[in-house]
């Protein structure tokens, strides 16, 4: 490995805390332009910091080079294909960064008088209207900060709804295909999880659902298409069962990218939907956020929505107050705030720009192509014989993503899904989601998204085929992959056993 050790591999990880020298600085403080008073007079010594925070001491060039170098140790969506199932890694238009960065948006204080923040409120209002239309549900709150925050809001709304009707309940149903945030949310909202099984077609087991839905059921949380990438054709019946026991139907919108403009959760009968603006609406993921998880709800849930709510005054723009758009705090049945201020506005700007760019037919096109791309990639993998070793978990037309099982590959070639994923890294691809959904053995969940070209899908399929060919000859290659990444396989067990969670400082 020595000659061919890459410059990045030679360059062992050094944190910013290990860089620099005492006395270096990137920041030049503004001059003190007011009469100086003894600090002790202003802040009593006993309240003051006793030992300084040992922050880095670096010059600006060191700072820049450190983080630019560090950044190059990341793979990203602008660099390559990122078919991470359930994550909708679609192209992030740079226009969105430009408009979000305009000072009228980026440097607007959240407590600015609404009269002088009319542009922001109008944008939020318009975004709410668009999301309501896409969801097929009339009322929207933009407040939640991510999908799981939206879920929590949704289940708390359910709770408020049942309590307001004087009939609190105890359980929430989640299919065994559900994303982990669903059951985790249920617990945080004080309910008990009741798991519902999956039928042979990959959908909800209706009998199991009927057996488990009862007067204790507060809600069913469902993803549709589900995390297997399959649309549940029984959706109307499912919602009927749930409604029949007086429970609410919650739609986890993480997979909305399959059905925008094609099928609406509201039309399916759902009461509450969350959106992941950082999935279907292309807010960049940032390596783990920020995102935004607005919710749309039906009439009966609306009174409980988080406050404040954006309102539009009828009549002319000025409307006496100069405030066509305003924030309404007087919502007696509201569950209250979920966070500070009005939500992740920067994400709203981007999502709104996206919706304005695509329009009605563009959104539909996005979903159609997302589904076309997924089915094509699956077909291509089949053509190349890949599916002999990696068959689809459910052999149906898929929606925007599909699940393969690596079980045959494991038994025939002796490499695991993990090995395949790691070998992909040497080829410059981000692997699909692995080992999720849990009920698929050696799962591989592949979501190409609509912004990828046929050529990219073809190239990816061929590389998978090549890796399988290579593994047939010598499975060790994949088992020890990757070779050329900045670091190779990492000791995760060791990390968890003796956690080192911060840089120790001398």
């Amino acid at each position, binding site marked *: 490995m020595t000659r061919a050790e890459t410059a990045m591999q030679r360059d062992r990880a050094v944190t910013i805390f290990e860089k620099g020298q005492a006395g270096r600085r*990137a920041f030049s403080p503004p001059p003190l332009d007011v009469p100086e*008073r003894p600090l002790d007079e202003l802040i009593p010594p006993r309240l003051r910091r006793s030992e300084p925070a040992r922050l880095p001491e670096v010059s600006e060039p060191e700072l820049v080079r450190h983080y630019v170098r560090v950044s190059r140790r990341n793979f990203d969506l602008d660099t390559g294909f990122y078919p*991470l199932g359930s994550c909708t890694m679609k192209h992030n238009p740079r226009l969105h960064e430009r408009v979000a960065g305009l000072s009228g948006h980026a440097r607007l*204080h959240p407590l600015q008088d*609404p009269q002088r923040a009319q542009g922001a409120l109008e944008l939020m209002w318009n975004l709410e209207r668009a999301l309501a239309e896409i969801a097929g549900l009339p009322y929207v709150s933009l407040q939640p900060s991510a999908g799981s925050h939206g879920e929590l809001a949704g289940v708390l709304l359910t709770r408020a709804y049942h309590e307001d009707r004087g009939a609190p309940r105890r359980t929430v149903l989640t299919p065994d295909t559900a994303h982990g945030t669903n059951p985790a949310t249920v617990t945080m909202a004080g309910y008990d999880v009741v798991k519902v099984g999956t039928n042979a077609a990959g959908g909800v087991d209706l009998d199991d659902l009927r057996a488990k839905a009862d007067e204790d059921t507060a809600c069913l949380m469902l993803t549709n298409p589900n995390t297997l990438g399959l649309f549940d054709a029984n959706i109307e019946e499912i919602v009927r069962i749930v409604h029949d026991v007086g429970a609410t139907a919650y739609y986890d919108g993480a997979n909305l990218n399959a059905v925008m403009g094609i099928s609406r959760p509201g039309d399916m009968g759902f009461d509450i939907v969350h959106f992941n603006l950082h999935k279907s609406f292309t807010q960049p993921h940032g390596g783990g956020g920020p995102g935004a998880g607005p919710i749309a709800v039906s009439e009966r849930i609306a009174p409980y929505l988080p406050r404040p709510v954006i309102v539009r005054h009828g009549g002319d723009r000025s409307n006496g107050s100069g405030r066509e758009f305003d924030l309404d705090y007087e919502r007696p049945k509201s569950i209250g705030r979920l966070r500070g201020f009005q939500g992740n506005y920067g994400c709203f700007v981007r999502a709104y720009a996206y919706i304005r760019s695509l329009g009605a037919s563009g959104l539909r096109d*996005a979903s159609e192509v997302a589904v076309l791309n997924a089915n094509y990639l699956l077909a291509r993998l089949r053509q190349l014989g890949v599916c002999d070793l990696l068959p689809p978990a459910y052999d149906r037309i898929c929606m925007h993503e599909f699940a393969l099982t690596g079980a045959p590959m494991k038994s025939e070639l002796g490499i695991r899904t993990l090995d395949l994923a790691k070998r992909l890294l040497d080829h410059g691809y981000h692997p699909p989601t692995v080992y999720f959904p849990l009920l698929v053995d050696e799962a591989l969940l592949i979501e190409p998204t609509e912004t990828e070209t046929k050529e990219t899908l073809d190239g990816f399929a061929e590389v998978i085929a090549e890796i399988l060919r290579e593994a047939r000859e010598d499975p060790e290659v994949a088992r020890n992959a990757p070779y050329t990444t900045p670091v190779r396989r990492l000791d995760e067990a060791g990390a968890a056993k003796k956690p080192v969670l911060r*840089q120790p400082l001398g």
Partner: protein
Amino acid sequence: MTRYTAVTDTDRSAMLEAIGVASVGELFAEIPDAVRRSAPLDLPEGLGEAEVYAELRALAARNTSVEDEVSFLGAGMYDHYVPAVIDMLMARSEFLTPYTPYQPEISQGGLQVMFEYQTAICELTGMDVSNASVYEGPSALAAAAYLAKLTNGRKRFVISRAVHPHARETLTTLCAGYEMSVTEVPLADGVTDLVAWSEAIEDDVSAVFFSQPNYLGAVEDPAPLIAAAREHGALSVCSADPLTLGILEAPGRLGVDVCVGEGQTLGNRLDFGGPSFGFFAARDEHVRRMPGRIAGETVDVDGRRGFVLTLQTREQHIRREKATSNICTAQALNALAGVVYLSWLGRHGLVELGELLVQRTAYARDTLAAIDGVAALHDQPAIREFALSLGVGDLEAVRRVIARCAAEHVNPGHPLAIDYPEYPDGLLVAITEQRSRAEIDLLADVLGRAVAAERSGAPAPRRGGEAR
């Protein structure tokens, strides 16, 4: 086909043939007719890039940003200077566009930043461990509450009324699910009333919450607040303003269990309230109940240092209903801004900036309190925010004063009475390093005249409102 998709007619035919269907419509055949739309959505048609830009610019132009007036608004988010290097780094595809680092070999960039961020937050707060970020300040406080619930299973929280109103409300919202009661402790002379605080805390209390500095800008004396909690075995949670921690004692050193806070002041722009990030740091003993992602150090098969997401058995994707939190996507990019900002400020810069804020704030407080009718609402120590009583009577009058100032392109601050009726003509004024002495003097002049006009009963411009 839009500009973001690439399926030409030729592509489509080839793809459909490979799939073995005749049309894209067939792919959706499993969706029952009743829930499949044929009509287009009721949304306007799409626009070209230049037109979208023009529309969003027009909307931006209808907002008065901190570049359009001299603004003393704070109350939770502050107009600190964001260095250009942060824009550049946040705009790099390598940081902007990846998902959560599930494949560590090709995500060492993001993972190392998380590790550095955790280190910086631990240093700043004096806590043992930090996670890699939560959503923002108020929900961070609520997350700390959930940790307390998991820790001791008790049924009551005690919170100072001097904690940000959004955080108090968020706590109430989010603990409704697990049926906690919340006791609020009033203020005395601008800070948490220590007597009421001690009385409120008993053995049924799961955790106590205070803020440093508090919502009125006053520096609390945390030691007795924490001692009272410890006496009853309750966890103590401090919501701290990180930019004041160059001056104020690290909460960790004072013995809090959890230190949380709003990270906007650390290199994040205002963005009308978000995205920013919340930080969440705790004592070692709580680490396996912490919410969210945590990066840890390890080695690769060749012995190279590397980083991974760790302690994942806390998390929803592993533990599902038994997870310590449901959080998944958090605020990694904003936390990146946070650690870059702290590295930019550096060990000495953090202190020097703090000292500058203290001096300018003292000057501003004195200068404004000298206005006829105006008085400081409290005389507690302050770092970069303080509360005034304007001597004009009520909230409506305060609003008129603000409207008068706004007409001169000065935003004097945020009215207190919306959230604290007990201070009917209170005003919260924030000073950052971007507000020079000259601007403070301008504020004194403009506010002085506005208060005088109000007090003399002169006719006022149309009153504005405010968000809260």
